[in-house]
């Protein structure tokens, strides 16, 4: 893990989301599913974001402006600076034979980088509206479903599922695919094991998601 002061190189709208590009600043992009803590301008705490894309010389994060911190991040303009820390946590295992990426809503964020790393495997993405589904353009070879259809209705059998999305979606995917790898999220102050804020029940105990996860085998967590 390293911390760097980096410059915003671009900010583009992807449906209701913002794809924030920053200069890489000597940071290692890490593995798909790992995350970075992004300084949220004007806020006391940084925000955890999984890496969405790793273009040459850049890092890109897909952000949903749902609160004060994410709104501040989405308002950043090219030339602005922010501190970022990472890569943090454990990413997806990439030693899978028949990968299928499954994402829901803003949970598609780590899938573009994951798709590139795995040679653009098929993906199933679920969104709550056509507008939100614009984010599907970031993920190659994706089949898109819109609520009230859920991703679980579109997952073909016989794949190694790598998923990220809201908790109910991950719980449903875990029931369908007990061997899946699931990326979870939790409120987090630090991202490096210090604050104990991101505790989740894992193998019957409360453990830190930032240290044990955020990607976990489906059987490890009771949602």
């Amino acid at each position, binding site marked *: *893990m390293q*911390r760097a002061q980096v410059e915003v190189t671009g900010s583009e709208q992807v449906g209701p989301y913002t794809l924030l590009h920053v200069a890489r600043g000597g940071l290692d992009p890490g593995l798909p599913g790992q995350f970075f*803590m992004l*300084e949220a301008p004007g*806020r*006391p*705490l*940084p925000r955890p974001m999984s890496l969405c894309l790793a273009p040459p010389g850049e890092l890109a994060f897909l952000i949903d402006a749902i609160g*004060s*911190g994410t709104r501040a991040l989405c308002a950043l303009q090219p030339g602005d600076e922010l*501190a970022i*820390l990472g890569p943090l946590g454990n990413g997806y295992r990439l030693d899978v034979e028949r990968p299928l990426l499954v994402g829901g809503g803003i949970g598609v964020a780590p899938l573009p980088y994951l798709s590139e790393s795995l040679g653009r495997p098929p993906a199933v993405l679920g969104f709550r509206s056509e507008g939100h589904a614009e984010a599907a353009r970031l993920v190659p070879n994706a089949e898109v479903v819109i609520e009230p259809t859920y991703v679980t209705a579109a997952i073909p059998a016989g794949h190694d599922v790598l998923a990220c999305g809201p908790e109910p979606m991950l719980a449903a995917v875990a029931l369908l695919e007990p061997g899946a790898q699931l990326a979870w999220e*939790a*409120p*987090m*102050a*630090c991202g*490096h*094991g*210090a*604050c*104990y*804020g*991101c*505790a*989740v029940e894992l193998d019957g*105990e*409360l453990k830190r998601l930032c*240290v044990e996860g955020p990607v976990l085998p489906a059987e490890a967590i009771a949602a």
Partner: protein
Amino acid sequence: MMILNASGCLDALTAPTIARSLDAFVTKTVTPLPREGNAPPRIAEVEHGMLNSIGLANPGIDRFLSHTLPRLGELGVQVWVSVGGFATADYADLCDRLDDRPEVAVIELNVSCPNVDDVPASVGEIVGAARAATRKPLYTKLSPATADIAEVALAAQKAGTDGLSMVNTILGLALDGRTLRPCLSRGAGGLSGPALKPIALAAVYACYAATGLPIVGMGGITSGRDALEFVAAGAPSVALGTILFSDPTAPGRIRVELANEIGQLGVGELDNVIGLAHAKPPGPSEISSRTAAVSG
């Protein structure tokens, strides 16, 4: 002058490089038995700070001694062990079990966690029992949530504490913007970060004047200027808490900023700043000569 972490604000085993950037590492509070802590969510951001209701999650003293402490001892940084209990005897037992461990430089008595229901006995009793159980230096960590913190500090001093760590967090509440229900599952939680700084400074100021004990000052320090103010209030050492969450490189940065602040002050070395806030305000002639010295 030492820069430490506030207990519970750094895990030296997951972030050893950050731990080594400190003069001493303070562990998360260890209790007699393992504790999972409170149910999540247990952190929330607020204006100028954060709330936590972790609730002393820790592996318990047995596992701490067998697994954690040996690894901390290999880090190459001085280790202070924070202990917490629910009765006076707990503190005595914990100190007794740490007493012969060479990895432990100092024991910090956490008598002030706001996130547990069982309120321990009086601070004087706890310190006295701990003092009888160990030869290690004892620092007592005080809560600012008291009518007269100097009185508590004096009781700790009388009972044999070697120093004071101050302050712990103070209870605060945050409500969810949509539901108007508490953000934390426990309801209220400990407030830390810049919002705590004036409260902490007042506590350090009062206890330095009352006891003269060495103080590790903490509460919302984010810069060398903040650290300087704690030194001036009477704390020869400072600890960093919430800032380590957002900027784990803060110890090195704050060390440099503090040196620059002291250089600009024109009073010589840092020792000359300790307790400076208690000195008689400088007269007009002193101000002008100091200004001349700085500008010259």
